[in-house]
């Protein structure tokens, strides 16, 4: 049984101009211990799919699917209360803007122990010990002192480490990372990607990387789903995707990478699309 199995997911948003279909019948499967990358440009529906899974979309969104199961449990039938038991514990998520995801009014230590308070029966002392252990696991220097630090006193990379520590606090079975390194410098990006992959390998959890960056895909993924305008263009293991991409859209994305430039000009996506698009 796969960890997460979604069949024919559709998401529509009510807008003033009528319904807008952000996601049009896409399937997702993630096995335990697997790194799945969902790659696409803005508007491809890559974030919407995972927000729908987490139940984080606003009321204007209509979500339909033939199947939406996490460990065999139907996510659509969960009550809000049951869902909260799963979200943050078995499935957790990290976002692009680490500084915006942390509450500026509370210390890092407080925010880290909050997840443990909600989802575990640990005593206060045990929680503190676990928080320190988590901070060491994500490579935050001097954790004792950082417990009482506020988010604004730390760099973007350090805040993202705190977010990761928070996400893995309850040893989730599935971690969803939505553009976790887009706002960071390349050298910090490398550290954060290495950390995510190491945590994933040590714990054997499933990891979904949502990204627009083909470099990040190449560095982390086992399997890749390429999306464009709410539809799946291609699904392949990472090596076949880069070696022999099947869909024209994937070919276009790969050749638009400046490092793959052959002539004087970069090919653009429209060079690859047929008369009716992809």
């Amino acid at each position: 049984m796969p960890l997460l199995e979604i069949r024919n997911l559709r998401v529509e948003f009510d807008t003033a101009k009528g319904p807008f279909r952000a996601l049009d019948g896409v399937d997702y499967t993630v096995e335990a211990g697997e790194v799945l990358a969902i790659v696409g440009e803005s508007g491809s529906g890559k974030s919407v799919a995972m927000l729908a899974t987490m139940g984080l979309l606003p009321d204007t969104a209509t979500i339909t699917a033939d199947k939406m199961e996490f460990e065999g449990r139907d996510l659509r039938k969960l009550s809000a209360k049951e869902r909260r038991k799963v979200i943050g514990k078995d499935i957790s998520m990290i976002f692009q803007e680490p500084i915006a995801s942390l509450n500026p009014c509370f210390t890092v230590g407080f925010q880290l122990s909050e997840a443990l308070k909600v989802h575990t029966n640990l005593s206060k002392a045990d929680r503190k010990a676990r928080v320190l252990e988590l901070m060491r696991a994500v490579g935050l220097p001097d954790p004792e002192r950082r417990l009482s630090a506020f988010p604004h006193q730390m760099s973007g990379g350090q805040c993202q480490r705190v977010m990761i520590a928070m996400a893995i606090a309850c040893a989730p079975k599935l971690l969803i990372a939505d553009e976790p390194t887009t706002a960071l410098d390349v050298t910090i990006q490398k550290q954060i990607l290495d950390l995510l992959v190491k945590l994933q390998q040590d714990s054997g959890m499933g990891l979904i990387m949502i990204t627009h960056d083909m470099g990040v895909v190449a560095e982390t993924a086992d399997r890749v789903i390429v999306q464009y305008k709410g539809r799946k263009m291609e699904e392949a293991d990472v090596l076949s995707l880069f070696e022999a991409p099947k869909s024209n859209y994937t070919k276009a994305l790969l050749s638009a990478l400046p490092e793959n430039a052959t002539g004087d000009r970069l090919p653009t996506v429209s060079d690859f699309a047929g008369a009716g698009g992809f």
Partner: protein
Amino acid sequence: MSDDSILKVRDLYRTYDIKGGLFRKASTLTAVKGVSFDVKRGSTLAIVGESGCGKSTLARMLSMIDAQSSGSIEIGGMPIDIAKTGISREMRQMVQIVFQNPYGSLNPRQKIGHVLEEPLLLNTSMSAAERKALALEMLQKVGLQPEHYGRYPHMFSGGQRQRIAIARAIMMKPKLLVLDEPVSALDLSVQAQILNLLKDLQDEMGLTYVFISHDLSVVRYLADKVMVMYFGEVVEYGTRDEVFDDPKHDYTRTLFAATPQADVDSIRKRLAAKAA
């Protein structure tokens, strides 16, 4: 000018005074520490470095938004020191800048035509008809249509807005165009279009670029010379091939090692290491 350098920078410093408060002593921060370089006419200098390395401070000084603390800047043979001499119309015409976020640099209540004509209105004595003709010509040049003249910024996509920002910057036919992370906020396919446009414009108009970026693959594609900055200092400066083939400084090597590799061999290597 005897040589063909359009931009000469010598021993440039910029310091900021940080105000003291209840808990902090006043101090000074040196954002740019003794930077020197030349840029040849019609070529591209790329400046690489991570946040806080002083690359944007340097861009602000080159585009006359900020004055230098010491050192000299010479653009097209004219010494620039706005703290002492102020800015004249001629100086404004020499340098233009394009920023990272095109939506943030366009006034939402200003029509595109006016966006493009404003630099001419302020700095030249052209008539309204001449300005409009030039704006329409420029729209065409950056790949937009004449009917876009009367539209507002929110009606455009991110890539189109960056085209507008580029069009505005080249309205004055500047000697030097400073591009501060112009493609970082754009999708990959749009990024390719904008990079192509920049190359075309350079060939057509003989523009000189100072291109600021943290993305090494973009730099490798576009640059003639590369300068790597680290904590306000230049740690590496040379032609593109010198820097990419044989990086001298440790920081440059770290930067290269951290850049994700999207080629098949690297993926194979990673998967093999993982299976082991």
